[in-house]
């Protein structure tokens, strides 16, 4: 390689390294603010003021869903911590016990009063016939 090209290669690498470093610092500074939701165990570790709008994500605990007319109550768990949710409204079709969910709402006395319930599905795709019940 000719010296001039070597020099240009070095400057290209330098650009790449500086921008990677810059983004790394930005991401590091933003830290957990880039997370879309809290997990229930994070909620118990941190002090989150009442009446602050937050998102909590995890699994709907099996056997925890209680329905009464349009009202629905359930427990979100990450198998380390859990939180009770109260919601009045329509849940997505994919909402069911044992599957993923993200809830937006207000925390009050360890209960989450939900405004919106979103379903979170995993990366597995398969035909129903070989559903082995996980």
């Amino acid at each position, binding site marked *: 390689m000719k010296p001039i090209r070597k020099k240009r290669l070095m400057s290209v690498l330098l650009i790449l390294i500086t921008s990677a470093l810059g983004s790394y610092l930005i*991401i590091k500074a933003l830290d957990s603010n880039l997370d879309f939701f809290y997990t229930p165990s994070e909620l118990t570790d941190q002090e989150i003021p009442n009446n602050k709008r937050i998102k909590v994500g995890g699994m709907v605990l099996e056997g925890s869903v209680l329905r009464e007319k349009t009202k629905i109550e359930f427990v979100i768990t990450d198998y380390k911590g859990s939180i009770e949710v109260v919601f009045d409204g329509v849940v997505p079709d994919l909402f069911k016990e044992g599957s993923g969910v993200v809830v937006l709402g207000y925390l009050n006395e360890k209960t989450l009063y939900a405004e919106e319930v979103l379903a*979170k599905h995993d990366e597995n795709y398969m035909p129903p016939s070989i559903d082995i019940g996980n």
Partner: protein
Amino acid sequence: MIKKFIHQFASPKTYMFQVNRAYPYIFYFSVIIYSLSVFWGLFLTPEDFVQGNSYRIIYLHVPASFISQSLYLAMAIASAVYLIWKVKLSVYLVRSIAPIGAITTFIALISGSIWGIPTWGTWWVWDARIVSTLILFIMYLGLISLHDSFNNFEKADKFLSILVIVGSVNIPIIKMSVEWWSTLHQPASITLSEKPAIDLVMLYPLFGSIIGFAGIVTCLVILSSKFQIFRREKNKSWVNDYV
């Protein structure tokens, strides 16, 4: 030998000749492959055990997302080649890929939104995967308008390629966003290190649709690059053979 070959292919004139020869084959091959794969995916594969029929938009969403990121990597490599070796054709390609990249990213965002309604219960959330993809879309648009805002092509080319390389850090961020942060978007189903989390009957048409989509996008890039070459080399005598 190799050096001579590269030098020849790097001339816009040879590129134009070769690309025109290959174009119809790539076009028919990829249209057939994509249509067959989508037909296979829509009508011959079973429903998903959780999502039912709505997962079938995967045959558009995954190819579009994958190609939109691959196009950016291609742009970054072409930019480096331009900055180091000053190959003109290379920067023409960078400029030609940008609008096609914007289109595929847009398709990825729209198809993702449509998929989100029946599954997640929302068409848009500000999670890391979606926002980083939106940034990719805006970057493509920004690169186009940056390049077109200069009167001087040489300056435009230089700034364009430098900025493409700066922006390439976003690609690993998009890729890893579902691992690094909690997102509504699920993690990748197909990874290099593990066995795919998607059943084989759905995976084969998915691979077919990615290959077909890549071919169609290649055709679009070729068309776009021909336009850029005409624009930039309009004073060369060989161009007259084509117009």
